[in-house]
């Protein structure tokens, strides 16, 4: 890619959409005409959406090419795998060695990364790290043995191709009987689509980072608050944000102003539908394949029993709703008995939703809930464990001595735990001492959190106390415990950092280009602490090795490949460095990754 990013674009004289596009009913589907006839007639087949073809066995051919889509009324070219969005569902079998030939029919290089699959680093599919990428016209042969089972996915790791359509489900079926019994089994892959060139979207954010945020605080909100709570409290509510030049509605970089939210490649209007017979156990394999969207998923009228997380079976936990970010997966079991239910996945910033239906026959639909109200981020999201209520209303300069204040439990608890460590050595529990990097004190960051939250039982902004039982990280227990019983030999602390105004994202205040790799000694067991110094939730994905999330007390919780770290939160996990090679480690919000929230990990 040339070093120069073009910024030529005709002036958009058309008003930006205030409401998100619910999309065309047909989406990309063209029924009744053989794709080959269409291809002959137009040169290109329309992209198939809604029902990804299933490919199984040990030899699979995938072809990456451009194909037309129309989600919004405006025809666009997508980047697709075998001409479908989502890409074909790969149903593979545990223990098999699979050979997957990927042919590139684009005019630029491509790649495929098998998200969450444990494999040799040369097969991991990150151009420039694990291999050279797949040049135009060439075929790369991936070959690896499936050592695991569960729901995963695959996607391009080149440029913005994932945003433009290159994602699909990858299911590894167990050799023995699946302990998760179900009568029906559906992949529900959520994604997001923009009619704009994703690079142009990024260039706009680089100029104005709140470009797509139409939920900003306004004067009207202020006067409403004055009426509701009085002038002084209305001013207080804003003082800290305004003083720090932070925006309490900064929940997502992109919104329904440019995104159309898709379920299995189908717009909300298109209404993807999964069929069932009343009383059946239906397994839904939710995959967040979006480039930029956290989804809050629920099925009004149905309890969801979460049985798997990031491909790993967990002790069943029954919830009404869960939030997940790009890269994460949840398998749930539902037992529908009525005729129709809406699968409702609203974006975290409440600017739109993806939607589908579970029904006893095609053509049914159930009520679609309204979007939840927009909530401002709270002081806890910005400042962590500090107890705002105890701080009174005046916070002059944020620099005062706080020794006499009540810090909502967490931060202090940890200080004590660190001192009274009961179980084993100093490494039994994650360190609670915040160690900012030298490079966090400069223009690359806009804030640092000195007293992070470490509790994992917070569903996050917009889901707190909403009257529904919402899944949290603290609810998850991987069946069978950790893969490696050893404790950590050492700790690595990495801070998630950024500067929204400059639109730059980094780790420890250093973007990828300025960074050096994180080195892990082959075979070691290491603790990683991710400390979020930003106001956004970042789904952090470590390639090649499992991340075993622990409680603030050092107790094993759940094995993940992608860990969402909330604003001002500190999450720790253990990694066994059992995979030689170079691996990628990054935020799975694509634009954050692309702006530099990315590290290389070397295991040697």
């Amino acid at each position, binding site marked *: *890619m040339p*070093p*120069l*990013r073009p*910024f*030529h674009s005709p*002036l958009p*004289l*058309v*008003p*930006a959409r*205030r409401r998100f596009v619910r999309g065309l009913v047909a989406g990309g589907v063209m029924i009744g005409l053989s794709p080959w006839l269409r291809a002959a007639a137009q040169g290109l087949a329309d992209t198939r959406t809604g029902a990804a073809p299933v490919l199984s066995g040990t030899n699979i051919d995938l072809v990456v090419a451009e194909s037309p889509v129309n989600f919004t009324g405006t025809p666009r070219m997508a980047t697709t795998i075998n001409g479908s969005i989502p890409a074909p569902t790969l149903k593979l079998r545990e223990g098999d060695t699979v050979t997957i030939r990927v042919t590139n029919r684009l005019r630029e290089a491509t790649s495929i990364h098998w998200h969450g699959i444990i494999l040799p680093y040369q097969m991991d599919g990150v*151009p*420039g*790290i694990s*291999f*050279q990428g797949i040049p135009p016209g060439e075929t790369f042969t991936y070959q690896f043995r499936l050592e695991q089972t569960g729901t995963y996915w695959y996607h391009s790791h080149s440029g913005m191709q994932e945003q433009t359509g290159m994602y699909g489900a990858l299911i590894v079926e167990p050799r023995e009987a699946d302990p998760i019994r179900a009568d029906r089994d559906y992949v529900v892959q959520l994604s997001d689509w923009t009619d704009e060139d994703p690079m142009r979207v*990024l*260039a*706009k954010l*680089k*100029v*104005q980072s709140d470009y797509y945020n139409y939920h900003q*605080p*306004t*004067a009207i909100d202020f006067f409403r608050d004055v009426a509701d709570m009085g002038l002084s409290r209305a001013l207080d509510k804003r003082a800290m944000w305004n003083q*720090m*030049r932070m925006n309490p509605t900064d929940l997502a970089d992109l919104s329904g102003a440019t995104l159309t939210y898709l379920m299995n490649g189908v717009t909300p209007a298109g209404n993807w539908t999964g069929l069932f017979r009343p009383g059946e156990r239906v397994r839904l394999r939710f995959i967040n394949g979006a480039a930029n969207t956290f989804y809050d998923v629920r099925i009004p009228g149905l309890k969801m029993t979460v049985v798997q997380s990031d491909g790993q079976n967990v002790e069943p936990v029954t919830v009404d709703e869960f939030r997940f970010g790009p890269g994460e997966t949840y398998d749930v079991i539902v037992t529908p008995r009525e005729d129709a239910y809406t699968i409702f996945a609203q974006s975290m910033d409440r600017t739109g939703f993806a939607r589908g239906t579970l029904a006893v026959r095609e053509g049914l639909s159930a009520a679609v809930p309204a979007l939840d109200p927009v909530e401002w981020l709270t002081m806890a999201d*910005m*400042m962590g464990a500090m107890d705002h209520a105890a701080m009174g209303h005046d916070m002059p300069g*944020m620099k005062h*001595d706080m020794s006499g*204040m009540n810090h909502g439990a967490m931060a202090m608890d940890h200080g004590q735990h660190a001192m009274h460590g009961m179980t084993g050595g100093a490494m039994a529990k994650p360190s609670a001492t915040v*160690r*900012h*990097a*030298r490079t966090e*004190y400069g*223009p690359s960051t806009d804030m*640092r*959190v*000195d007293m992070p939250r470490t509790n994992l039982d917070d569903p996050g902004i917009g889901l707190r106390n909403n009257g529904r039982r919402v899944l949290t990280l603290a609810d998850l227990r991987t069946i069978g415990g950790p893969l490696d019983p050893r404790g950590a030999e050492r700790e690595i*602390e990495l801070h998630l950092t950024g*500067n929204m*105004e*400059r639109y*730059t994202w980094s780790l420890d205040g250093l*973007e990828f*280009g*300025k960074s*050096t*790799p*994180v*080195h892990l000694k082959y075979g070691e067991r290491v603790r990683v602490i991710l400390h979020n110094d930003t106001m956004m939730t970042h789904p952090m994905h470590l390639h090649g090795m499992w991340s075993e999330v622990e409680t603030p007390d050092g107790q094993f919780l759940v094995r993940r490949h992608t860990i969402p770290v909330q604003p001002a939160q500190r999450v720790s996990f253990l990694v066994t460095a059992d995979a*030689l090679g170079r691996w990628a480690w990054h935020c799975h919000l694509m634009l954050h*990754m*692309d*702006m530099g929230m*990315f590290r290389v990990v*070397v295991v040697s």
Partner: protein
Amino acid sequence: MDHGSMNMQGGPAPADARDPHAYSNGLTLESGPYALPGPRQLRLSDEHAFGSVLLDRLERVYTKDGNATAYDAQAWFGGTYDRLVLKAEGDVAKGKLEEARTEVLWGHAIASYWDTQLGVRQDSGTGPDRTWLAVGIQGLAPYWFDVDATAYVGGAGRTALRLSGEYELLLTQRLILQPRMEVNLYGRRDEARGLGSGLADAAAGLRLRYEFSRQFAPYVGVEWAGKFGQTADFARAEGQRTRETRYVAGVRLWF
């Protein structure tokens, strides 16, 4: 835990701050075990250049003494921390460039919200042209004030200081009230350009725009402008007003 030193933004790194390369064990992106041969292939957008041209004001100005067209633009090209910055501001009346200030600067990020700017300024229009060296700071002050403060050194011992500030008050998501002020001071008089020493001129305006999109917003506004001290004397000698109210209508756009 030391809560006394809490400071969430900016400031110098403490002496014991963590080394961000401490986990690398000497490895780099280009070298070490399993590195692909040759130069580094993976370059993300943090190493790419971006750019933008903002026409903050492109407006028709209506006063008692006649009408003019004014422009105020800023363009940049570069990365996150170092940029080439162009600033251009001026008035055209009756087809003639009355007054223009054009600057070419190197912008360098020094803090979360602040860039230093170093470069040259060229004044043209009525009177002889003047060239200055420019040293300034531009950024976002607490409470979201856009601030631009630049000091200039020109020939013959001339010095100048320009301060400007803007604020964006969102009445709704698209209807935005923009207060703006600007002050120019000079170190010594420059009669040929009608400038006295000290405070020369100041302007304060209010513009109300509607953002059809983020990039295209027509506006109307009003601005109060005044000349002061010797500069006002020069203006009076020329038969000009020293205080005036201007009504403006224009468009703000960027691309």
